[in-house]
Every structure is written in C-alpha cells, then in structure tokens.
C-alpha cells in the first residue's frame, strides 16, 4: 500500500495493521526516515532548521507502485507499506515509513532495504533546507545510486 501525505503517521498503529489478521506473517521489518538538524554538503556541516519536501503528484504514486511491485516480484511478501510525507518538516519529524511483512525475516528485511534504496533514487521528491545561509536545495548523493545498484 502507498500513501503520499502531508500528515504525520502513527508508526505503532501502521506496523500493527500491516500483519493484522494474517497469521502466515512471521516478521515485520521497517525503516523510518527522520529530518536531521544538520547536513553535510560541500564539506561543511550546516544547521538545518526545517526542510520542505515537494513532489510530482501522480508520478510519485506511480513510481512507488512500480517499486512496490518489483519488491513483490523478488520476495515472498505478505504486505508492504510506503508512507512518504511532503510539505514543511522540522528536525525530528518523520519523513518516510517503509514496512514489509513476510513469513520469513530474510525476505522482510531485504525487501525493506530494497524499497528505501529504490525509493531514494526513483521517487520524484525534492528537499529544500532552511539553513543559516538561507534556503538550499539538497543535492542528490552518489552514495544513493550506489545503494540502489547493489540490488541489481
């Protein structure tokens, strides 16, 4: 399931719902992305007071659905959930939740890592940060492409 929303989410509730009523599920894995109060970009650490996430409505949902379908193709998953927020967020706020449920932990853990790695390079979201020097667009990181490529 995919949700792109401005609102926060309740992690405990979402994880509980993912496997609710399905007793074939042996494990639930999750990743939660949070807003940091610093960013290392261009060699210096800058304080981040807040960030604003924008996205490309419809393409975002479409790409996330493709990524989810790819995970389903690769691993025996009982359920998957991706929630990604947009709008203005402050340090400590949740940005993203990726969760997977499977009869086996290996599949749940691997699929969860796969989903967040692919999401970072394929889902059309952009972050701009509020720093002491003003507003700044976050640059894509080569490490994120490398993280995705390990799943080929």
């Amino acid at each position, binding site marked *: 399931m995919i949700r792109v929303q401005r609102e926060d989410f309740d992690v405990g509730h979402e994880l509980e719902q993912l496997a609710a009523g399905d007793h074939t599920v042996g494990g639930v894995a999750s990743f939660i*992305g949070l807003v940091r109060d610093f960013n290392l970009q261009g060699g210096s650490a800058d304080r981040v007071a807040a960030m604003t*996430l*924008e*996205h*490309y409505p*419809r*393409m975002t949902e*479409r790409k996330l659905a493709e990524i989810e379908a790819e995970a389903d193709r690769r691993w025996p998953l009982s359920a998957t959930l991706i929630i*990604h927020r947009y709008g203005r967020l402050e340090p400590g706020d949740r*940005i*993203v939740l990726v969760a997977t449920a499977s009869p086996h932990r290996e599949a749940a853990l691997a699929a969860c890592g796969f989903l*967040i790695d692919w*999401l*970072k*390079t*394929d*889902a*059309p*979201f*952009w*972050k*701009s940060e509020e720093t002491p020097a003003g507003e700044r*667009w*976050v*640059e*894509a990181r080569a490490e*994120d492409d490398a993280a995705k490529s390990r799943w080929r």
Partner: protein
Amino acid sequence: MNAPVKLLYFAWLRARIGHAEEQVVLPSDVRDVAGLLEWLRRRGPRYAEALRDLSVIRVAVNQDYVGFEHPVRESDEIAIFPPVTGG
C-alpha cells in the same frame, strides 16, 4: 496547428525558470527531449540559466523517466527537474 505540450518544472528548476507549469506549442523541428531542451534554452535568460548544465537535468515524459533521445509528441506531459532527493 499542433496541440500544445504541458511542461512541468520542479525544485530549483521551477525556482529559476519562475513558474511551475506552462502549455506550449512546439515548433515542428522539435522532435525529442534534447531538441526541446535546446529550444527552451533559447526562450530567455531564465531558461538558459536553469538549463545550462544538462548533467543535472532529469526528464519524465507522461510520468516515466526518459533519456534525452526520447521523442516528444503533441499533448505529452513533460516534466523537467533535478535528480531526486526523497526518502
């Protein structure tokens, strides 16, 4: 008269170009993404500046990522943006 294409700009491209969206009728010699970017650069200094370095430009046609050789056709929705930074 050709039907227009819908152009969408995101993140710093939107900020530099100055708007998020526009409908334009492309000249008939603009046949692919590379040709479109070249044509846009000639539309004014804001476009020229925003599209100066094509290595940091990504394009989606009808909501799928495409290469610069991808054809553009009437009524396409063409989004132009920097590399994504979600998650």
